[in-house]
């Protein structure tokens, strides 16, 4: 279990004058879960987005499985759209705001990548999509449109949609932050089941107790660098750096306020 599934080396990213990632290096062993924590604006989302190339790094390299992308800062050397697309397909991403396709049913949301990107026959894609919906407990919602689902159900569909690409790793960017408190559990349960299945995962979360329980390792980011990392329980229970201590003390075992008021979506 020492083989690294994700290997990030010297990752730099700036937006204008705002240097967000200042040389991040990290490894995620195959089948393990890394929780990425840090205060808002510390660059967690940017790091995740650089790992699946939604944001193109200025410099450094990212390896996921056997796919490697190296960036030198020379914009003429950028990989082709298709190469990047193949890289992204292998790296599942789950967003805070779900981003389900509202014009497609739940089933077609899950099938979309399989049909368009993987070019699977529709019948096969449908069968696999139904199996995935079964896995996230939403088989009976296959024919619904996303606006009919609760936030927790939407996020579980989004997870199924990402899994449909059979990615080698899954990235979660605050997957439960936009959810009503009573819906957080059902999404966390799906994430837990995935981890138990041996999926390699990086989760960005403000749920410290969830990170402590689920993650093998915790990485604390601050100001564009990795401040502290190590086994989850060590970092959370006995942080070595004062910045980590300060950050964790603000939680007191609770989650911070959410940045969005609960919304009710019913049909």
């Amino acid at each position: 279990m020492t083989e690294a599934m994700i290997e990030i080396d010297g990752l730099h990213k700036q937006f204008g004058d705002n240097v967000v990632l200042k040389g991040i290096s990290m490894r995620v062993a195959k089948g393990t879960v890394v929780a990425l924590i840090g205060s808002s604006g510390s660059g967690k989302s940017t790091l995740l987005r650089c790992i699946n190339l939604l944001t193109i790094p200025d410099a450094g390299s990212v390896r996921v499985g056997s796919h490697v992308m190296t960036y030198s800062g020379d914009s003429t050397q950028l990989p082709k759209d298709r190469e990047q697309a193949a890289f992204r397909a292998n790296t599942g991403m789950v967003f805070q705001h779900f981003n389900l396709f509202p014009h497609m049913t739940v089933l077609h949301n899950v099938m979309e990548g399989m049909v368009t990107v993987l070019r699977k026959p529709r019948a096969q894609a449908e069968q696999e999509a139904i199996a995935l919906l079964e896995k996230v407990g939403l088989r009976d919602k296959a024919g619904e449109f996303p606006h009919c689902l609760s936030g927790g159900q939407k996020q579980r569909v989004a997870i199924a949609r990402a899994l449909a690409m059979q990615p080698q790793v899954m990235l979660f960017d605050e997957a439960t932050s936009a959810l009503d408190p009573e819906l957080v559990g059902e999404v966390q349960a799906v994430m837990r089941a995935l981890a138990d299945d041996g999926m390699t995962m990086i989760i960005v979360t403000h749920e410290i107790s969830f990170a402590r329980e689920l993650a093998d390792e915790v990485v604390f980011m601050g100001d564009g660098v990795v401040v502290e990392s190590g086994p989850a329980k060590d970092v959370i229970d006995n942080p070595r750096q004062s910045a980590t201590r300060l950050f964790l003390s603000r939680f007191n075992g609770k989650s911070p306020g959410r940045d969005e008021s609960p919304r009710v979506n019913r049909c």
Partner: protein
Amino acid sequence: MYQWNFAFLVDFRGLLLSGVLYTLGYTVLCIVLGLLFGLIAGIGQLSPSKWINSPLKAYVEIFRCTPVLIQLIWFYYALPSLLGIEMSASTAAILALSLYGGAFYSEIIRGGIISIDPGQPEAARALGMTKFQIMHRVVLPQALRRMTPPLLNQSIMQLKNTSLVSVLALPDLVYQGQLIVHETYRPLETYTLIALIYLAILLPTTTLVKRLETRTAL
């Protein structure tokens, strides 16, 4: 008091019918070509490359901000002599009206695309879709719903704008009307009937637009 009398127009029904068919034909061509120009200019203007978006912006502004009648005449008289090519009145008319409509369509299409939540193309990108697939499968289908009412409105304008081809002596409905007036000296009845024909063609379309607008507002 003027004595209205529409009965004589029955004798010209063949002429009027051919005018209607010409008008509809020009409309279909100008809508299809206009949408094509609009799609290219609308999406192209969103390109980050200045080499692509600047000329398209210039095209849109030139055609939006000059009178379509002048464009029509310019395409017929000036362009052929500038480029040294032969252009029939039909070609010039269709080209000018399509480019004119396309400039307006492009703004509708561009607006529709940028109104889509950026999380949508992002989620599609994360699945590994290419730029073309993202446009085709995710962004355009959602944008199209919002764009349909304004696109239909613009298409109504396209139909009415085809009346301008009569200045190039093309036999559309208005041109046929002019012929009838020359022969009968009864412009009031003739033009009233022609207006009613336009109304009859367009009323169902405007009703449809209204219905779509209430539906997309939901």
